[in-house]
């Protein structure tokens, strides 16, 4: 995953390998995007253009598919990925305020990465820890019974 071994053109060469596996096949855009995303953890514009050109598809179509599915990222992830639960239980316990606080602390919107590359923010539907609502995760750590003030304290530790 993304560990460049040959300096410079490695990513391009690996993308080409992926494309060639699917040469001449129909309906393969999604698996191609998935594999291409594995290279750098996201899909840069250049990668999307290369894929579209290879399969002779309009850029708008490839971009449309890439933005439709939540699994595709068009910007690099931060070093730490924050997942804030917006599911029902968290919602009634003030999940939106938690999300708002993360946004204002980091000065980003949901789905974005902070300017220093330290955090990215993904709202999620449920983390399966409703008893601890409202909940968020940073990487593999779970934080429950949150308040906006606690959010600021937690973020400061990273």
């Amino acid at each position, binding site marked *: 995953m993304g560990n460049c071994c040959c300096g410079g053109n490695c990513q391009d060469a690996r993308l080409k390998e992926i494309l060639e596996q699917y040469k001449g096949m129909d309906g393969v855009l999604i698996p191609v995007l998935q594999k291409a995303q594995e290279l750098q953890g996201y899909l840069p514009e250049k990668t999307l253009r290369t894929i579209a050109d290879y399969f002779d598809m309009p850029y708008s*179509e490839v*971009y449309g598919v890439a933005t*439709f599915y939540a699994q595709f990222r068009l910007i690099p992830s931060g070093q730490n990925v924050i997942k804030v639960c917006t599911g029902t239980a968290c919602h009634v316990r003030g999940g939106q305020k938690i999300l708002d606080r993360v946004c204002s602390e980091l000065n980003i919107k949901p789905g974005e990465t902070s300017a220093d590359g330290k955090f990215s923010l993904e709202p999620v539907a449920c983390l399966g820890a409703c008893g601890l609502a409202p909940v968020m995760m940073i990487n593999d750590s779970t934080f429950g019974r949150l308040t906006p003030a606690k959010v600021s304290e937690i973020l400061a530790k990273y």
Partner: protein
Amino acid sequence: MTMSINIAINGQKLTVPEGTTILEAAKQIGIEIPTLCHLKDTNEIGVCRVCVVEVKGARNLVPSCITKVTEGMEITTNSPKARKAREMVMNLILATHPKDCLTCDRNGDCELRTLADKMGIRKIDFGAPVKDLPLDDSNPSIIRDSSKCILCRRCVSVCNEVQKVSAIGLINRGIGTTVGTAFDRGLADSPCVFCGQCVSVCPTGALTERFNLREVWQALNDPDKHVVIQTAPAIRVSLGEELGEEPGTIVTGKMVGALRKVGFDKVFDTDFTADLTIMEEGHEFLQRLTEKGKLPLITSCSPGWVKYVETFYPEFLDNVSSCKSPQQMFGAIIKTYYAEKYKIDPAKIYTVSAMPCTAKKFEANRPEMNSSGYRDVDAVLTTRELGLLIKEAGVDWASVEDSQFDQPFGEGTGAGIIFGSSGGVMEAALRTLSEVVTGKELKNLDFKGVRGLEGIKEAEVTLNGQTLRVAVANGLANAKKVLDGLKNKELDYHFVEIMACPGGCIGGGGQPRPSTPDTKQKRMEATYRADKGLPRRKSHENPAVQEIYKEFLKKPLGEKSHHLLHTSYTPRNK
């Protein structure tokens, strides 16, 4: 053989051919089911759900625009369930739609507003926040206001299927879905060719041309400015629709009269430079034919097509005629020949052109279009804007009397007029080429093989023993077919006419809405009627064209022509 299907709509029995949709069947017995996303033959996807009806035995309501009738089907178009569902759909659309109808570009002809009225919607039940998305005004031709978009996808279908440009598509998901370009940039940063076919089919104010009326008024009100207007061939058969006339009405005389009342110093006819184009392009063709130059020669009048070939098929740029479009030739001639002849300072001349086209705005803004030493064309108005200009000026259309175009560019031939229809440039060229090559008078001027709304038309013409194969394509999907055929050597022509818009300029992106196949047919017939009615029907017989060669240009493809009337092209990124 097509089977007959027996059905009943609202209790009325009828028989329709197999394959008929419920929507079409209902229309046959005078029942109009509301539709919003539906666009016959282009966008038949049933996404808006405004057209739902109740079918006996069906589990759910069905969208009538895409549901084909089946034997014994019993349909109720106005059952309480169907009406409630339709109202709900409209309510949901209207809830997030901006409410600035009074100042919207589509005030007066908005399909959404008309439908809300027809459906008797007087109150919106939901208090959802109104859409507030950034405006895309990145280019000289088209403004996209996604806040007003109802996601009917007509524009996307037209751009993808009819034009094969695919500048726009649906992006993001769920509530965040919008119509946008790849990487969500402005149209200027996309392969958009500015043909405006999307503007032509948009049911709301989400897609409009960039308005240039304000600049034109400013010039008209400036006593120092000499303001001239040229009107395209295809405008005289469509402008009437903006002013209450039936499609296909020829309003040439009234249009000139009205524009004089608006206050233009001179009203000229783009037919003049259409004829001039034939002289230049005809000679360019002969030169390529005799000197074994690059063939086929492909026409260059349609700026949407020119941007398309620059973007998608740059390998064909040497095939495209170096002739500027009639609009740009006109601009260059006005600020040189006309300025000299009438001793007017070209810096004080303001040229307006009235075009059936949104891409013409882009074309006039191309950086190289300044061969007169000034911006050759200062402002471009669409047919719709021209109608609005006349209304804004308070000119009572009904009482306007016919008037003649001004000299020296008031003479146009029938050949110039038919430029407005797909096949017209080819026919005009063939009329002139025939006489120039054979030296004999052409008796039958009608080249019917290149006429009509069909997407690709082919013909053969024999001149002095040499058979020329010609083709005409309209709509960029058809242009693509021709180019692909030429590329892989399946097709072989000497001369090809391509127009970006289906039907040619009569179906241009700046024409009155709605621009249906039926209205296009009527406009097209009108151009040929206008052609038949003129004493001169061949470009080289235009006395003004003969005069400008004598006094100024000297000869086709001469040095002055090269400088003022010809241009070069730029390969572009997709």
